[in-house]
């Protein structure tokens, strides 16, 4: 088994791909019986320091319907200078080049600048606005010098700032209540060249600006100072807000104008619209809540009761914008910092469909926001920004496979072809997707369908192949293509089930299934999704468990499956599927990140990691279980979204007593420090920056920990009371043990 783990890891390292199954069932029927679909997590831009750049055009298969790219899996006849396409078996005559590896990067000539369009809410508290202004000013220094930047501010009105002018600062102002078409926006911004009657008498104006747009989008190196000043002078929205009202915030129109501006000026060029908002849209198209404070913003309860009067309309508005943005190849980030909801539920499609970021915080004046924002502009080992734009992912499969769909920060390009399945999983019906914004960790779940019929077996040693072709605009403004071609063995599920079973990647499978579940949860009722997940789990256990019928105690799972039920247990409890205690915005936020992080991060989200620190030895990972909460331990929990440091009761008392300050208890000081250092390490690497919670036994913030651990001890099973075995959780949730007991019972039952 170790070999498979290594294999999987190797593949992930090299290709950025993790398959649920690494040996593929060779017939359609058998594949469906595997319960977990054949699917993979693809990280198209996985960082590969060793990746050799190749400076030539990719070699394409000459069959017009295929156009696969020459790859190491192709059979090559060096003497005849021929190669056979491993997807369509077309024989191609082509000059051959050596040094092929997987994946490949090709450079292409065309350059266009990166574009950053800041869309800034000015209805903020003074210190929030100040912090935001500083962050924005700071970001200017992080941008590539030739990047184009633009600034739109909004409150009651929307202002598009002209950045080129000397002296007087100039902005175009739009009413925040009026929905404008793209054409109107472009007309009003003067982006469309009107058919001007030529004035003979006048001297021809020298054409200073090659782009009409350049008034609003300027190279940062030219207007750095100007923009810094402009940001510095930015005032809070001056319109009075009377008591009992929310400020009028025209987020919908602001975004619409941002989209329209880029659409009219730089279509199909990498661009980020970065929306910074401190509250919900309260007027105009896309409004989420009215300006009366006495009417609170919609909750899950309201939505269930169909009581969220603006939700549908607003969602439609932002979806329309998101789709237009995706069509233009731009992406939208949302940085929402407010104590209350800001309408992420309605706006989520903007980052979700365009590959933008979604960041949620309490205030712009927090390190959470500041560092997260800074991290957007982090660079890789080559000194390039970790961002890419306007990618299209083209998936090609060998003929035994078809593509069922993808789940991730992408939209369908609606390219039908022979390898597109009719059964959709996620966003299907296409073999190409557009990922407008992506970074080295952006990960898509791609789902396949085995279509080979049972009666046409694949010869022994046959391999199925999949090629992922990602064309994108690199942050260095180059166009690049990365090609990843993978192949896996086919196996007959009847005769070689063991092989298949052994090649099961339960981690990948758990994440892929979770993505399907979360994808469903966006459109279905929560309980339905949970039932569906349960059913899948039971079926999987029935298929791969070893047990005697009707004897739960006999139930066993092999190592390659053993963790899977536990993942599902925690997934069921996760905020991705449970909305209780979460606002709609929070749910949207969690789901957004879940649908784009790579496998490791996704697993942390599903099942947080818990480390225990004590005097008994080095830090150790412990079970995410209430039994791990002990008085003499410090716990460090990483849920991806939160980093929680929890001091056990005794530790907390010691600290309170101030032992750490006494030289003779320096080791205690070190013990206290150790989790802090480890947490810092995680904080440094994580995007978005997690919420950092430092708490102790009995602290109010301890709830973050208590809500996550498996409630193995509750007030309901009092046997543990009084024993030093952990902390009881006051919950009626079932524990993992109970869950497993039920699962076993159902798996072995012949009724289901």
């Amino acid at each position: 088994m170790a070999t498979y783990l290594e294999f999987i890891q190797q593949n992930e390292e090299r290709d950025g791909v993790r398959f649920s199954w690494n040996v593929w069932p060779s017939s359609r029927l058998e594949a469906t019986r595997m319960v977990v679909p054949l699917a993979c997590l693809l990280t198209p831009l996985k960082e590969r320091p060793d990746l050799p750049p190749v400076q030539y055009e990719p070699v394409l298969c000459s069959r017009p319907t295929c156009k696969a790219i020459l790859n190491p899996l192709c059979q090559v006849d060096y003497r005849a200078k021929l190669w056979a396409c491993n997807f369509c078996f077309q024989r191609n005559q082509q000059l051959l080049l050596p040094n092929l590896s997987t994946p490949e990067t090709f450079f292409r000539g065309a350059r266009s600048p990166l574009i950053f369009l800041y869309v800034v809410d000015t209805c903020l508290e003074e210190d929030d606005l100040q912090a935001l202004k500083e962050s924005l000013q700071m970001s200017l220094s992080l941008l590539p010098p030739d990047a184009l930047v633009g600034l739109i501010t909004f409150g009651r009105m929307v202002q598009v700032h002209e950045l080129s002018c000397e002296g007087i600062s100039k902005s175009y102002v739009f009413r925040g209540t009026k929905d404008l078409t793209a054409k109107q926006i472009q007309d009003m911004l003067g982006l469309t060249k009107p058919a001007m009657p030529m004035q003979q008498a006048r001297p021809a104006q020298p054409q200073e600006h090659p782009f009409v747009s350049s008034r609003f989008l300027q190279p940062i190196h030219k207007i750095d100072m100007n923009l810094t000043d402009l940001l510095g002078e930015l005032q809070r929205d001056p319109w009075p807000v009377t008591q009992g009202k929310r400020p009028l915030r025209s987020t919908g129109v602001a975004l619409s104008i941002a989209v329209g501006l880029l659409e009219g000026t730089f279509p199909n060029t990498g661009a980020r619209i970065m929306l910074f908002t401190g509250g919900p849209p309260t007027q105009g198209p896309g409004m989420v809540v009215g300006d009366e404070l006495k009417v609170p913003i919609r909750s899950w309860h309201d939505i269930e009761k169909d009581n969220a009067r603006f939700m549908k309309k607003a969602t439609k508005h932002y979806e329309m914008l998101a789709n237009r943005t995706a069509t233009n190849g731009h992406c939208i980030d949302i940085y929402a910092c407010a104590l209350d909801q800001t309408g992420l539920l309605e706006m989520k499609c903007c980052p979700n469909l365009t590959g933008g970021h979604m960041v949620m915080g309490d205030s712009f004046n927090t390190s959470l926001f500041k560092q997260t924002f800074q991290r957007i502009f982090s660079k890789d080992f080559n000194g390039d920004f970790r961002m890419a734009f306007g990618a299209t992912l083209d998936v090609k499969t060998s003929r035994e496979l078809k593509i069922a769909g993808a789940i991730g920060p992408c939209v369908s390009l609606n390219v039908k072809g022979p390898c597109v399945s009719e059964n959709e999983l996620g966003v299907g019906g296409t073999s190409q997707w557009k990922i407008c914004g992506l970074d080295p960790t952006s990960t898509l779940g791609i789902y396949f369908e085995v279509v080979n019929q049972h009666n046409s077996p694949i010869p022994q040693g046959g391999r199925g192949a999949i090629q992922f072709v990602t064309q994108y605009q690199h942050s260095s403004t180059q166009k690049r293509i990365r090609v990843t071609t993978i192949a896996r063995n086919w196996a007959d599920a009847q005769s070689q089930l063991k092989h298949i079973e052994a090649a099961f990647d339960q981690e990948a499978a758990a994440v892929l299934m979770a993505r399907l579940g979360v994808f469903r949860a966006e459109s279905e009722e929560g309980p339905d999704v949970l039932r569906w997940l349960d059913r899948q789990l039971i079926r999987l256990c029935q298929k791969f468990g070893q047990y005697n019928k009707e004897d739960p105690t006999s139930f066993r799972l092999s190592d390659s499956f053993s963790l899977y039920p536990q993942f599902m247990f925690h997934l069921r409890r996760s905020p991705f599927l449970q909305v209780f205690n979460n606002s709609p915005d929070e749910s949207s936020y969690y789901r957004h990140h879940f649908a784009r992080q790579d496998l490791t991060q996704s697993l942390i989200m599903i099942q947080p990691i818990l480390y225990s620190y004590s005097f008994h030895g080095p830090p150790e990972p412990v079970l995410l279980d209430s039994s791990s909460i002990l008085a003499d331990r410090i716990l460090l929990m990483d849920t991806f979204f939160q980093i929680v440091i929890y001091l056990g009761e005794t530790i907390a008392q010691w600290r309170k007593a101030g032992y750490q300050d006494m030289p003779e208890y320096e080791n205690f000081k070190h013990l206290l420090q150790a989790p802090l250092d480890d947490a810092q390490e995680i904080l440094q690497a994580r995007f978005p920056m997690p919420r950092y919670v430092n708490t102790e036994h009995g602290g109010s913030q301890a709830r973050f920990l208590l809500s996550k651990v498996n409630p193995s001890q509750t007030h309901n099973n009092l046997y543990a009371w009084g024993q030093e075995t952990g902390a009881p959780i006051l919950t009626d949730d079932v524990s993992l043990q109970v869950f497993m007991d039920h699962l076993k019972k159902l798996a072995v039952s012949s009724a289901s």
Partner: protein
Amino acid sequence: MSQQGYVATPSYSQSQPGMGLSPPHYGHYGDPSHAPSPPGMMKPAGPLGATAPGGGYPPGPPPPGPQPFGQNGAHASGHPPQRFPGPPPVNNVASSYAPCQPTTQSYPSPAPTSSVTQLGNQLSAMQINSYGMGMTAPSQGPPGPLSTAAFRGPPRPPQPSILQPGSQALPPPPTTLNGPGPSPMAPPTHRQDGLPGPAPLNAQYQPPPQPGQTLGPGYPPQQTATYGPQMAGAQLSYPGGFPGGPAQMAGPPPQLQKKLDPDSIPSPIQVIENDRATKGGQIYSTNTRGQIPPLVTTDCVIQDQGNASPRYIRCTTYCFPCTSDMAKQAQIPLAAVIKPFATIPSNETQLYLVNHGESGPVRCNRCKAYMCPFMQFVEGGRRFQCGFCSCVNDVPPFYFQHLDHVGRRLDHYEKPELSLGSYEYVATLDYCRKNKPPSPPAFIFMIDVSYSNIKNGLVKLICEELKTVLEKLPKEEQEETSAIRVGFITYNKVLHFFNVKSNLAQPQMMVVTDVGEVFVPLLDGFLVNYQESQSVIHNLLDQIPEMFADSNENETVFAPVIQAGMEALKAAECAGKLFIFHSSLPTAEAPGKLKNRDDKKLVNTDKEKILFQPQTNVYESLAKDCVAHSCSVTLFLFPSQYVDVASLGLIPLLTGGTLYKYNNFQMHLDSQQFLKDLRNDIEKKIGFDAIMRVRTSTGFRATDFFGGIFMNNTTDVEMAAIDCDKAVTVEFKHDDKLSEDAGALIQCAVLYTTIGGQRRLRIHNLGLNCSSQLADLYKSCETDVLINFFAKSAFKAVLNQPLKVIREILVNQTAHMLACYRKNCASPSAASQLILPDSMKVLPVYMNCLLKNCVLLSRPEISSDERAYQRQLVMTMGVADSQLFFYPQLLPIHTLDVKNTMLPPAVRCSESRLSEEGIFLLVNGLNMFLWLGVSSPPELIQGIFNVPSFAHINKDMTLLPEVGSPYSQQLRMIMNVIQQNKPYSMKLTVVKQREQPEMVFRQFLVEDKGLYGGSSYVDFLCCVHKEICQLLN
């Protein structure tokens, strides 16, 4: 002797001694004692004043008994409730007013004034009636036969359509008018007993009645006996000729001599000079109900003693007919021209401000009239009876005051509202919008920065000028700085707002491109205190010309600009004024977009009125919104081609703003004129968010209003703003009988916000007489006001009726008024005689000027923009402005006495008054021409222009060179004096005789036949005479 005034025909017929001459106006209500005062002579004032104090005024028959202001005690017993009918002895009044009028010391003059006035009038009457005297012949009468011959021809051409209402053959003018010597004017007898059919119409513009259709009830003959002797006296005393007049006629062109002698027909100049001679420099106190004020052209000091100064209100007649039948019969419009914010010279008392604190003004409970001298206190002062509706009201406790033995409150002279015609109240919150005290108003400057304005330097000029003129924003007298806030917008086809908040280093520009639905992009920082934001504003004004220097934008919007300004004021919750500097037809795609629809083919058709109507109704509804949000719009137009003034101008008109137009603006020629207008407009006295209500005593009411106003209902006159130059003309109609005792009382109340943001009420009260004698009515008319009314009503009518109809109506009404007089008031005379009431002597010439104005004259030579512009100007004019506008002032400059600072006496506006050796200055309130005869004295030329000869003069100037010579200094001084207090800065045009621009100049010689049509004065007089004859027949 009847009150006939004037008989024109016989001036040259010398054979009519004893004819129609009389100064009867005064005689018949004055007491006999003064009647015989020999006209024409400045009688020593003493005796007259002493014997007939105040009697000289033409107030209705004075019931001698009740003199409310009589000396204490004397009249106490005889007090009737009606207080104001009788003219009190001036002296008494003067003294009794002492507490209120500190200036009373200088008061002894009124009495003399009155006598002088009479004399002057008589004199003028005589002068006109020169036929009456044998002596006229030598000085002016051309030989009879000659004129007869010459006269036959000319009248015909201009008359045809206008003057002949029916198909009736026109009696040859000569017969009618000239009826040479032979038509012997019978010695003036008293008027006929019967009246010709009174006009069955109320509307001005109805066709004239068929003569003789109906016969009115018999009219009581006047007390003829009294007047016989006076007349004789008058005739005898006629001294002959008017002083100086003939002298000016250096060389009347020979051809004129053949015609009816122009000197024999009533001369406006003479009327003006006479009034000046009698009343000029005097004190006129308003203590008497129904007295006729000095003419607008006469300078005098006015003392408010219970009636509003004529600077505020003037009436077509100061004696209303008692019944509507009478009014219909005479067809004299009953109207008042109210200029509530008129500028008061510094030597007159400014308005007192009454503050009743939280209680607010005391008002009649029923009709809501404000406390005023017309209120009668009764029951020991506990109640007061309203003079307007007669309702008896309780006096509020805080206002109680005991009455003295004549029934007058003890504090009568301490309270302006009890003793003065005009005063102001501090308004309480009830009078404010939303019951909140108003914010100080704002001025928003909106500059068209399209290509042409940038190119000709206008934008730069405006920006430069604003820097200095903003220092002079108007402020409340007691305040250090102006409370007015300012804002700036530039625009072409989009709008640019500017944030000029004081804490900014640089102004910020905010562009609003959504002109379809314009809005205000900022609140804070748009309207600022000039002093606080001065540096940012200067920075902005420096940058604006630069900013658009490269602009190629030709298209402009207009309605959205106003909308934006209005929205800005609305958002700031204040009243204000927009200053718009605009130059082109707004063709950009936006509301209020206009097309060029100037169509000369419409001229002289029934559709001509379209040219005066706005192209779309956008502007009217926008104006309505503006008024609702008290946003006044002043528009400076710089058109180089058609801009559709009829559409664009509607907003300034309806919002109480001003329209200035500078055709083909050229920086080096026109900038001074524009800058003066701009400065003047910014600095002038103005009230905002005004609502005016004209209340009247029972029996009549205000029915129609003309001016820069907006009316949502029939009574409230709404004005976004009203400044010192704007007048509202109000027409009154009877709805019941008026009593001679009670008279006709008018109270005009204007609720407004001051420039400092205070809410105030300005009240003007005026008492008029009433009479059942037509003669009284005719006697009390003021022609200048009549013309103002006729002009406004006619100019209003051009929107709806063909011009031809309007012209006919005007002619007919003129004829009708005069015919009615002739029939009812004048002494019997030959049918061929033209008899004009003294007060309307110059009505024909003025009426002719009105008819010749380009608005009413259908000639394609005049652009429709110019016509619309003039139409609009007149709509808001006060009496003085309209007088000057229709009958320009023509001053001989070559006769200047450099030692005398007085203005030279004017001459009549006719080419015949010019001379080749002369230099003349012509002024009409809009334009100023300096006409130079070809043989102008070289020393004058040298003195004025500093060039050796006529040929060296460069006409291309709008300012006279500053030459040190006395001529130059005096001429420039005169021009300055003339310009003073005129609403528009006049552009000077230098015209050399017999050179091209003379054509333009000649249009203003309004007594002559117009270049583009329009009859000469003489012809028109003939025509009117003919009409009258027809009516009489």
